C-alpha cells in the first residue's frame, strides 16, 4: 500500500485508475457469465465448476496481461504497476464480482441442457 509520502512524490491520476478498474470489472462480469455457459454445457458439478471458473478467470487475467499490460509497459519495465496500484488488483480483482453471474448462467444452462 502506498503511503502519503509516496503519493505526494509520485501522484496518481484518479481518472485513469477509475477507467482501468471499470474496464477490468466489465470484462470480468462479461466473461464470468460466459464461463457459466461453458460450465453448464459441460455439466460440471460442485467443486469442479468453481475450479473451472477459477482457472478461466486466471486465464482471462493472463490474456489481459499479455495483450494490454505488456505492450505498454515494455518500454519502461514497470510491469503491472504502470496500470494498477498492485498486481493483485489485476489477478484477483474480478474473481468475487463475477461469481454471482457465473452461478446464475451455470445453473441456467445446466438445467437447459439436461432438462
Amino acid at each position, binding site marked *: 500500500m502506498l503511503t502519503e509520502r509516496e503519493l505526494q512524490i*509520485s*501522484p*496518481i*491520476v484518479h*481518472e*485513469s*485508475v477509475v*477507467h*482501468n478498474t471499470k*474496464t477490468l470489472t*466489465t*470484462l470480468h462480469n*462479461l*466473461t464470468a457469465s*460466459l*464461463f457459466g*455457459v*461453458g460450465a453448464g*454445457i*459441460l*455439466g460440471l458439478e460442485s467443486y469442479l465448476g468453481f475450479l473451472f471458473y477459477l482457472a*478461466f478467470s486466471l*486465464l*482471462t487475467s493472463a*490474456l*489481459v496481461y499479455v*495483450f*494490454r*499490460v505488456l505492450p*505498454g509497459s515494455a518500454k*519502461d519495465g*514497470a510491469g503491472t*504497476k*504502470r*496500470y*494498477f*496500484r498492485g498486481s493483485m488488483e489485476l489477478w484477483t480483482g474480478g474473481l468475487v464480482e463475477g461469481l454471482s453471474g457465473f452461478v446464475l448462467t451455470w445453473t441456467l*444452462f445446466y438445467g*437447459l*441442457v*439436461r432438462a
Partner: protein
Amino acid sequence: MTWLSNSITGLGLLFLAHACYSAHEHSALHSTSTASISSIVSHGTSAPTVASLPLDISLETIVAVFTVCLGLVLGTPELRPIQWRVWAGKIEREGEKGFMNGDGQTDKDYVGNPFKVLESRPGFIDIRKQRKEFAEWVREGGGTSAAPKS
C-alpha cells in the same frame, strides 16, 4: 482492431451455440436410449447413468469459451497509465492519438493536456510599475488626454 475482436467473439459464440445444441441433443438421445433399454431389459433397479459428454463436445466448448474470451479481451479499451508523470508524458508525446478508442475517435473522458493552464497563462504583471504610472497620471491632472499606456 474492432472488427478483429468482434469477428473472433462472433466465431466463438457460434462454436458455443453449436456445442450447446450438441450437448442438448446428446443428453436427449442418451435419456431416450437408456429409457428404451431399461424398458426392454425391465430391470427395475437400473439406475440412470450420468450422461458423460463426448470428448469432442467438451473440447468444442472449451475452445469456444477460450475464443470468446480472447475476443472480449482484444475488444477492451486500452488501459491508461495511472502514475501522473507517465500519463502526462504520454499526453505530451502523443496528444489525442494516444486516447483513441477502436473506432478512431477520441474517448469522451479525454481531458486534454493537464499543463494547458500553465502554458496559456498571462504573463506576470508588474503591479508596482503600473501603480507608479497611475500615480504620475493622477499628479498630472488626471485628464483623459494624458492617459498613460500600460
